[in-house]
């Protein structure tokens, strides 16, 4: 290695960029390139002309409005419930009582299961001859099985999806919040206790405001994932509940039209960006108020 290069690599200003290079290369190859390609596919026809035709057809599709509706409904329902549960789980784990590590692992267990597998697990719970119906029947609560998964009872089917998603993906929020909780200095908590803040008051006035950066990250990640929810819905609700990510998948793999599939992907991306921007703005301004 010549002296010049060593000097270049060794300087404090450039070293971080060298270290970032592998990550940047990874993002470039596996995220940015497909992203740009998807955008091109969505806007350019096979003959090379720029067109909005694929978006027009996406919006005119008989399933589009349903897919849009259910995607938002799922995100709006799942994310708040998950954040509240994850917070409770994180606080429980963070108290450090004997055996709290056991709960940490127990809660994190679903993280290791693929979403499609999670959907199938819950399918075996909710089908006509599934575990839930068996239990209810043997307890004498019902005389004949309830159709939990049914196009005639979309509410129940939706609930089943929410339960499955909740079980599967709450752990990721919890992990982020546990990390956040552990970063809160004990001094604040001790000071709060000295000043008489206990229980709910301590959580509400001390922990939550300090946890806000972690909450923000958790919310952003969870909302984006919720918008992309697909495998669990596919496994549990099949064609009963269409979602945007599912439509993109079907257009690509069943009907072999990657243009319209890409239009769906671009729409999802636009919604995700808008949501993230919203969170950043909304949560930051609140934080400044608190700090001020």
């Amino acid at each position: 290695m010549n002296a010049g290069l060593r000097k270049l690599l060794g300087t404090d200003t450039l070293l971080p960029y060298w270290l970032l290079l592998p990550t940047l290369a990874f993002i470039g190859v596996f995220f940015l390139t497909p992203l740009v390609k998807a955008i091109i596919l969505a806007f350019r026809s096979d003959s090379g002309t720029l067109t909005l035709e694929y978006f027009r057809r996406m919006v005119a599709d008989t399933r589009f409005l349903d897919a849009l509706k259910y995607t938002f409904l799922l995100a709006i329902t799942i994310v708040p419930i998950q954040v509240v549960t994850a917070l409770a789980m994180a606080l429980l784990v963070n108290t450090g009582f004997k055996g709290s590590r056991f709960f940490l692992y127990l809660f994190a267990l679903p993280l290791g299961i693929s979403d499609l597998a999670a959907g199938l697990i819950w399918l075996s719970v909710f089908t006509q001859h599934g575990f839930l119906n068996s239990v209810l029947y043997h307890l004498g609560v019902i005389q004949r099985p309830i159709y939990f998964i049914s196009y005639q009872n979309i509410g129940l089917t939706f609930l089943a999806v929410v339960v499955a998603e909740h079980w599967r993906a709450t752990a990721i929020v919890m992990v982020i919040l546990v990390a956040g909780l552990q970063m809160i200095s004990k001094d604040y908590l001790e000071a709060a206790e000295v000043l008489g803040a206990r229980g709910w008051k301590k959580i509400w006035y001390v922990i939550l405001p300090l946890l806000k950066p972690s909450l923000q990250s958790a919310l952003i990640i969870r909302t984006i994932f919720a918008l992309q929810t697909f495998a669990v819905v596919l496994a549990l609700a099949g064609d009963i509940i269409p979602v945007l990510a599912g439509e993109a998948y079907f257009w690509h793999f069943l009907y072999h039209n990657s243009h319209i599939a890409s239009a769906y992907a671009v729409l999802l991306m636009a919604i995700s960006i808008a949501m993230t921007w919203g969170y950043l703005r909304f949560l930051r301004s609140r934080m400044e108020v608190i700090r001020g």
Partner: protein
Amino acid sequence: MRRFGIIALALLVGSVMGFAAQKITWMSTQFVPIAEAEFIRNQVLAPFAEKTGIQVEFLGAEYAEFSSRIQAEYQAGKGEIAILCGLHGDLAPFAEALSDLKGTPLGGTIPEGLMKLGVIGGHQIYIPLVQATYLMVVNKKALDYLPEGADIWALTYDQLLQWAKNIYEATGEKKLGIPAGPKSLLHRFIHGYLYPSFTGYQVLAFDAGAAVKMWKFMQELWQYVNPAAPTWDAMDTPLLSEEVWIAWDHTARLKQAIIERPDDFIAIPSPAGPAGRGFITVLAGLAIPKTSPDPDAAAKLIEYLTTPEVQVKILQGVGFFPVVAEAAGAVPSGALQILAKGVSAQASSPDAIVSFIPGGISDEYKKIYKDTFFKFVIKGEPVDVKFLRQQATRLRQLYLEADAPYPAPDGS
């Protein structure tokens, strides 16, 4: 001088061998996977060589290779391929390059309905060899509720409705199953079974009055279909769990249920509507090119391959069903026999309307049929003629864009 000697020797050996064993080449788009090709070579063609002294070289080919080879040999006026095997869609475009096989001796009886599918421009361009199809599998418990006067081997859609209704009223459960999940073959049911049965066509009458009646009938029938249907991609599992007693699907997606419990199920033909008994046949046939070097040996192979024993052997080896009526009875008991009986009964129904799977057009046609079903049947919206017309226009546009002919029954 020495080189000349070697060539002369090679020629001599070659001609002697050629004389001793007649040798022909069979090119096929079917049985291409190695395991299947090996099965055809060792289990089907080896006994043929023993019996007749004719050596058959089996040559599996992709469609592109298959078509260019036929084309090239036809244009050259002479060829090496003695006999061909392909799906209807593989052979139909080359009608003029293929010999008329009318009167070729067969090893069994092929139903008229199947034979005439091989007739193009008045010539029998191929002889059906094997078929795959979609039909119904029924749990024997359901037979107690069969409506009066209904013949299980010649059911109508009205009787199917009454049957499912009887079961619902007696058990409180919706025991009829149609696969309507995202990866199901629901589109096949709509374009190959419902539409031809009710309107006589799969494309031409998409928005006709008969189609409106059909959708209204389906709305009624759907009341007795298990409401989890939109989550099912294959019907073997719901049949085994008894979530349904009557199910329609592709034979390959029903087979597992019968294999696991052969005593509990029977396979029956799909129902008939006002226009007839619409069903899809995926048909593979045998053809002899006009340039075949040995049409007589090829004809002998056709006779051999259409004997019930060989047809049954092919079913056991590669899962394609026999086209020969006598074969259904020759299948050893078990799951395959139950299925083969149903397939044979369906294929030889007197009111058959055979449909083919569209070829060469965008797969979006599947979505057009499924979306219409989703809107009218699953969501239960009122049957809207304007929407039907819109979908019909789009469907015909797909055929226009690809310059593809409408498949049977529309095209025939």
